[in-house]
Structure formats: structure tokens, C-alpha cells
């Protein structure tokens, strides 16, 4: 197992007390696998990824649980050892490639910098590798692009450069935090295509963080659904989308307007909005918005197996799992 996260809890100080933003999140990621972490804003998906990267530097933050990467425990790892890992074995790309590059240096220089931070290699050799990487990422005229400043490139090119930088040291794990959210839909399709190709060409595993169920469906082998800092459901993407086990997953999928088939007169929507971390209910966090809420939801449900998935809901155990999802046929 490349990455095994167990009971990861991240608590940040808010208003003088420690509030758990992410609670008891567990999942595993195998070699050459793409795992999607989906959730709405405030679900804790970005915090989870930053905790794995060791990039949570809020004073007073507390991280507990276990993150094992290639058998090595990362929670509590010494800063120097973490630094040697970051960028070399675990790399990360971010949502907005415009603000994620330092504006005052050329893109090539920033990629060279990462290569030279981890390997003893000459400037010109590093640049040669940068240009080759940019070319591999489908950047036209990579030599010229390497000499440009971030603001001089289009959004798609910037994100390709960002991915080139992340892959520059052949990391075993790539964490992509909303990598296509700032991009146009036709460019998004290109970048997702690129990410899917990485495991073939580079043997990388990818942890894809997104709010977009469509992106997950088209990209990920397995999926983890977060709601209000807790795992709602996890399992193989195909099974999870065909027969979601958690009412939240089902409702989330239903509320997406379909692009094909008949148009619903009204979109099935979820009433209300997710609780803030400090005001999370003691029982199931989704209970106040759930159509199936009943007495036993007052106790926080553990993850239980339901079909091919694990679901944090009492319904499967009570013998009345959700029905399979109706999916309109797509016109080819």
C-alpha cells in the first residue's frame, strides 16, 4: 500500500478552542491508483491533503491519527525529513495556477529550482529536464514557455507547467487539489486526460481533490465522499455512482442538473446548508438535511460495508439500503 491514512483528525484553534476540521478520516491508496476526494466547500478535503503534505502551519493546530506513506509514519515527522519528501516523493498541484506560481520568476526557473532542491545536477541539465517535462505535458514550444513569466501564459499552459513541476522528481504520489476548477471546460478535459495518463507514463498514484462529481466519475478508480469533515462514503467509483449508499451522496448526485435525457421540472435539492465545524451535530452530521432522518441518527454512525462501499449511515445496517440510481441514457 502506497498511502494508508487512519483516523486522521486535524483540529485548528478557532475562537480560542480547538475545533476538529477533519475527523477520523481513513482511506488507502495503492500504486498507480487514482483516488478522488469529493466534498463541498468546508468539507475538509483541502485540509486533509495539506495534512498529508505536512503543510498545515497554523500555530496551535493538532494533527492526530496516522498517515503512512510507503510504510513510513508522516504524522509527527521531523521538518527536515518532511522537506526531503515533499516535492520529491509526494508532490502537489493547486487550484489556481495563476497564483500558485511566484509571479516574479519565469516558469522554467521555478521548475529548475525544484529539481535542484532534490538532486545534485547542473543548471543546464536541470533546464534540459524542465524543457523535456514541459514537452511531455503537451506544452507547445516548451523552450520558449520555460522562459516566460506565469502571467504571460494561458490558464491551461500554466496548469500544464504546474504538473510538469510536480512531476519533475518522479514522485510516487501526486496530490491534485482542485486542479481544473479555475479552467475552462475544454481545457479541463485536456488536463484530466493528462492526469489519467500519468499512471501509465510515470507510474504515479494520484489523490484528486475536487468538488465536481463529474470530474471524479471520469477520472478516479475509487472515491471518498467527505461531508462536514467526516467520511460519508467510500468505495469503487463505478459502484458508488451506480448505487450510492449514503443519502448525502445520493442527494448530491441528484442535485446536479443532467446534460442528457429529460429535463426535470425541478432539481432535487438538499435543503439548508452544511454545518460549520464548530456547530457539527453530535450524531450524523447530515441528519438535519437528510430525507431519511430518524431516531437512530442521533448517534454518530460508524463506517459499515454496504455493497462494494463503506458507508457512514445506519440505513444499510437497518436492512433498507438506498435504491440504485436512475441514470438517463446518454446520446453518443
Amino acid at each position, binding site marked *: 500500500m502506497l498511502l494508508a491514512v487512519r483516523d486522521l483528525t486535524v483540529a485548528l484553534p478557532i475562537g480560542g478552542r480547538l475545533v476538529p476540521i477533519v475527523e477520523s478520516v481513513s482511506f488507502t491508496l495503492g500504486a498507480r491508483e487514482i483516488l478522488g476526494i469529493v466534498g463541498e466547500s468546508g468539507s475538509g478535503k483541502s485540509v486533509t491533503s495539506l495534512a498529508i503534505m505536512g503543510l498545515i502551519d497554523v500555530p496551535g493546530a493538532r494533527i492526530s491519527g496516522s498517515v503512512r506513506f510507503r510504510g513510513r509514519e508522516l504524522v509527527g515527522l521531523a521538518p527536515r525529513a518532511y522537506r526531503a519528501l515533499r516535492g520529491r516523493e509526494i508532490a502537489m498541484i493547486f487550484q489556481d495556477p495563476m497564483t500558485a506560481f511566484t509571479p516574479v520568476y519565469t516558469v522554467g526557473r521555478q521548475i529548475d529550482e525544484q529539481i535542484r532542491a532534490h538532486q545534485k545536477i547542473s543548471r543546464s541539465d536541470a533546464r534540459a529536464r524542465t524543457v523535456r517535462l514541459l514537452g511531455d505535458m503537451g506544452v507547445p514550444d516548451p523552450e520558449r514557455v520555460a522562459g516566460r513569466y506565469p502571467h504571460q501564459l494561458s490558464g491551461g499552459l500554466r496548469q500544464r507547467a504546474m504538473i510538469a513541476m510536480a512531476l519533475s522528481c518522479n514522485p510516487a504520489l501526486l496530490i491534485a487539489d482542485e486542479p481544473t476548477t479555475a479552467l*475552462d471546460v*475544454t481545457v479541463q*478535459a485536456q488536463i484530466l486526460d493528462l492526469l489519467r495518463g500519468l499512471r501509465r507514463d510515470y507510474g504515479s498514484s494520484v489523490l484528486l481533490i475536487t468538488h465536481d462529481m*463529474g470530474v471524479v466519475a471520469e477520472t478516479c478508480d475509487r472515491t471518498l465522499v467527505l461531508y462536514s469533515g467526516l467520511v460519508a462514503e467510500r468505495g469503487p467509483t463505478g459502484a458508488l455512482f451506480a448505487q450510492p449508499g449514503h443519502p448525502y451522496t445520493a442527494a448530491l448526485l441528484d*442535485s446536479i*442538473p443532467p446534460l442528457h435525457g429529460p429535463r426535470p421540472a425541478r432539481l432535487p435539492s*438538499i435543503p439548508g446548508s452544511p454545518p460549520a465545524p464548530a456547530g457539527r451535530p453530535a450524531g450524523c452530521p447530515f441528519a438535519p438535511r437528510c430525507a431519511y432522518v430518524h431516531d437512530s441518527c442521533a448517534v454518530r454512525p460508524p463506517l459499515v460495508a454496504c455493497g462494494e462501499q463503506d458507508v457512514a449511515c445506519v440505513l444499510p445496517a437497518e436492512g433498507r439500503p438506498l435504491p440504485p440510481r436512475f441514470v438517463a441514457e446518454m446520446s453518443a
Partner: protein
Amino acid sequence: MTYRVGRGQVLRALDGVSLAVRPGEVLGLVGESGCGKSTLGRCLLRLVQPSGGRVVFDGTDITMLPERRLRPLRQDMQMVFQDSYAALNPRRRVGDLVAEPLRVHPAPSGGRRSRGEIAARLAELMDLVGLPQTALERYPHEFSGGQRQRINIARALALSPRLVVADEPVAALDVSIQAQIVNLFMDLRDRLGLTYVFVAHDLAVVRQISTRVAVMYLGAIVELGEADAVLHHPAHPYTAALIAAVPEPVVRTQGLPPPLRGDVPSPIAPPPGCRFHTRCPVVRERCRVDPPLLRALPDGRDVACHYPLVEERAGP
């Protein structure tokens, strides 16, 4: 519509766009960033001054109308923006924000509205957008994004406009909240007989709400027609590519279509001929030199393509 950018270059945000919004319809404007959909939406309300062409609202040419004569017409056309927080002054109560247009514009009878009239209208508006009456006494930051967008909608509706231009009103919202707001837009249209111009980049949202759709690319409309016709049987290769690129929450058994290549060219120097020819998967020689005009197809839609993807004989 042209903008001047640095060094004397001219950015043509919109280039010779013609379209009519029919009363009672929902016209969706879709396209990627830089296609001019937001600029077009603002031109309709004359929030930006077009550098050429005409905007006619309800028989009145408003293109050159002085601001003083435009003001009474502004009551009939309102706008809702993407960023629900930036659109609301954080230091003022929701009640004051929603009441502002009521205080600024005279009542239909001519005089100013009384306090009682305004209070009654505010109560009515809160019911309309699904907010509790207590919301009027609170400040914008106390609300979630979806509720703030409801406040913005209430403010836009205060003067009972006939036309509402909504610029990416749900783009910043989470999916579960987005569905609530899309439903609200649809309910309000049915109840109040509104006409919408709905600007969005999300094809699925546009399909859900629109009766007609205009697809834009680099400052021009490439396809315009009934929503179902355009989105189910696209005639323009760009429309088809756009639809194919939308990731859908369905696990497909067969492979995905190859994505469109390249980026949107810079609107400062759009390509000659058909603007889409640099990325078009079915480009032919003629497309590189001869810019196609928007023309009607037998099935009633307009398309700007020499070689549309649907049959040119009378449609089914």
C-alpha cells in the same frame, strides 16, 4: 463592443453580435472565459456602453439614451451577479440593501413610496425568495453564499422588473445550494412572468433553466436556438466539443472522446476566417479564410458554420 487595452491594441470583446430576447423566455448565454458572454449581458442593460450597434429595449433605442432618461427604464431591467458577497455592502442591513432601489426610484404612481409601502414590499420579497422576515435586520456576512444570492435576487426584484440579466449567479455555489437557487429562478419566472438572460459557463445549468441558448466563442455567437435542439443535436462543432467536454457524474463504459486541442486564442488577435478553425476537429480549407456568418438552418436555429453537424435539409 470594443475595449482599449494597453499599447494601443484593441480588444474586441464582442464583434457584431445580434440577438433578440423574446418576452417570457429564458435565454442562456454559454461559452468559455473570454467569449464575451458577460460583456453581452452588461451591454443589454447598458452597464457598458457598446462602441457600435444598437440595443433596443421594448421599442426604445437605449444605446445613446442619456442617463437621466435611462433611469426610468432601469426599473424594468435588473441584474444579478456571480459574487454574492461583493455585490452587497457589508456595513448595511439586508433590509436597507433590498429597500434601496425602492427609495431611489419613484413609485408607479409618481410620488415617493411611504415607509409602510416599503415595509410591505420587503416582507413580500422575503417570502418570494424564501428567506425569513428576520433576515431583514441582519447583515450580509451572517448569511451563507446561497442565502446571500437570495438577498441579491430580492434586491433585483424589488422594482418588479420585466427583464433580469443573471451573470453566473450559481457559479460560486456548492452543487446542493446551486440546485436550490436554480429552482428559485425557475419558480420566480413562473410566478412573476419574468424574462431572463442567464449567463453561465455550466452547460447543464443552462440547459436546466433556458428555453433558448446562445453559444458564444471569442466574442461572437456561433449557435443560437431552442435549448433542447442545440444541446442534444449541436450544429456547430464548438457546441459539440463543449458538450463532450463536460464531465458527467456517470461512470461510462466506453472511452471518453478525445478532448479539444489547444487554448482559446487571444481575443486581441482572433484568428482569421472562422474563429474556431484553430481548434476545430472538422476544419476544412474554406474555414481558414472565409468567416462564416450566422445563418438560419431549416430547423429554425442559427449557426455560424460552413459545415454544420446537422442535416441542412428540413429537420425531423
